[in-house]
């Protein structure tokens, strides 16, 4: 009866519908849109606060997005745990350093992969705060609320992403 829990993947339509229901319940029970990029600001603010409390206190952005362990913060550790549970059910947990799409174009040396991932992560963290949300906050939760800004932002995420991915894997990577 619980066989579906051990499947590798579900239909993307079923998983997506589940996320839609989940998001609706987040509005009902927590009065919040499910988003992920806020957690990284909060975590970063707490790290800065540990190293240099005066600097954290003096940063205007941390007065708007207060660095503390709360609902938006808990989402991200939750996702790590949820994905881990899912992959343990299907027996597919494995340590991975270089994904195949990357390896086929640029080789399996982990150093370039980690460095480009780091650069990507910095731009992603910077860009998500610039835009005020990420693929879940704008792309899903914002669109659900029929937010014009969120739908435009989601289109820009993919427009920028498609252009750079094509350049990276089709032109530079030559695949």
């Amino acid at each position, binding site marked *: 009866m619980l066989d579906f829990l051990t499947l590798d993947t579900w239909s993307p339509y079923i998983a997506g519908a589940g996320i839609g229901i989940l998001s609706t319940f987040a509005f009902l029970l927590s009065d919040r849109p499910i988003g992920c990029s806020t957690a990284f600001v909060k975590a970063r603010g707490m790290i800065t606060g540990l190293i240099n409390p005066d600097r954290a206190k003096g940063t205007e952005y941390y007065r708007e997005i207060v660095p503390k362990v709360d609902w938006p913060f808990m989402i991200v550790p939750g996702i790590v745990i949820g994905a881990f549970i899912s992959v343990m059910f299907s027996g597919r947990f494995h340590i991975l350093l270089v994904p195949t799409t990357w390896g086929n174009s640029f080789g399996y040396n982990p150093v370039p*992969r980690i460095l480009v991932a780091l650069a990507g992560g910095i731009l992603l963290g910077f860009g998500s705060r610039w835009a005020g949300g990420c693929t879940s906050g704008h792309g899903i939760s914002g669109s659900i609320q029929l937010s014009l800004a969120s739908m435009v932002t989601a289109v820009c995420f993919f427009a920028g992403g498609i252009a750079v991915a094509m350049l990276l894997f089709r032109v530079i990577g030559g695949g």
Partner: protein
Amino acid sequence: MPLLTDLHKNARAQLVLGLLFGICFGFLLQKGGVTDFNIIEGQLLLTDFTVLKVMLSAVMVGMIGFHLLKQGRYVRSHAAEGTIGSNVVGGLIFGIGFALLGYCPGTVAGAVGTGALDALFGGMVGLLAGAGIFADLYPSLKPVLMKWPFPAVTIPDFLRLNTWVTIALLEACMAAILVLLGYYGF
């Protein structure tokens, strides 16, 4: 007032709920296949449309759920006014990072849960650094973030249409995209 204000104000309950919502979200992202670098880059290279299928299905279901609850005043809208300076510019910067990293801020956490170390050492560390850079530059970026506001907060306001008519139109468009994807073999 049917809004569950007492529950919303209960900080300890919300902490647990945040974790539970995160766990369910991570579970569904992994089962949907979108915590996989190859699937996300496949979407950006337009060879695999799993990401779009998951997102459109989520929005198609959530849009109806949210607005039914809103009609009964069980939820309220958080939609805020946007600007080209913030949403378009920030969205494009995000896109560059999205392609280089191959994960977004939610799926990067999911990928860590599946054992992807590029997501942990590249993605998570980079995201913390990028968020810090933004926090430091925030006061000087503010004028740009407020530049060129959008003419409306919501799609129905922008189109001057009734909310449910707008939802019906969006549902039809999104369903058509999904049907076309299937028709062309994606």
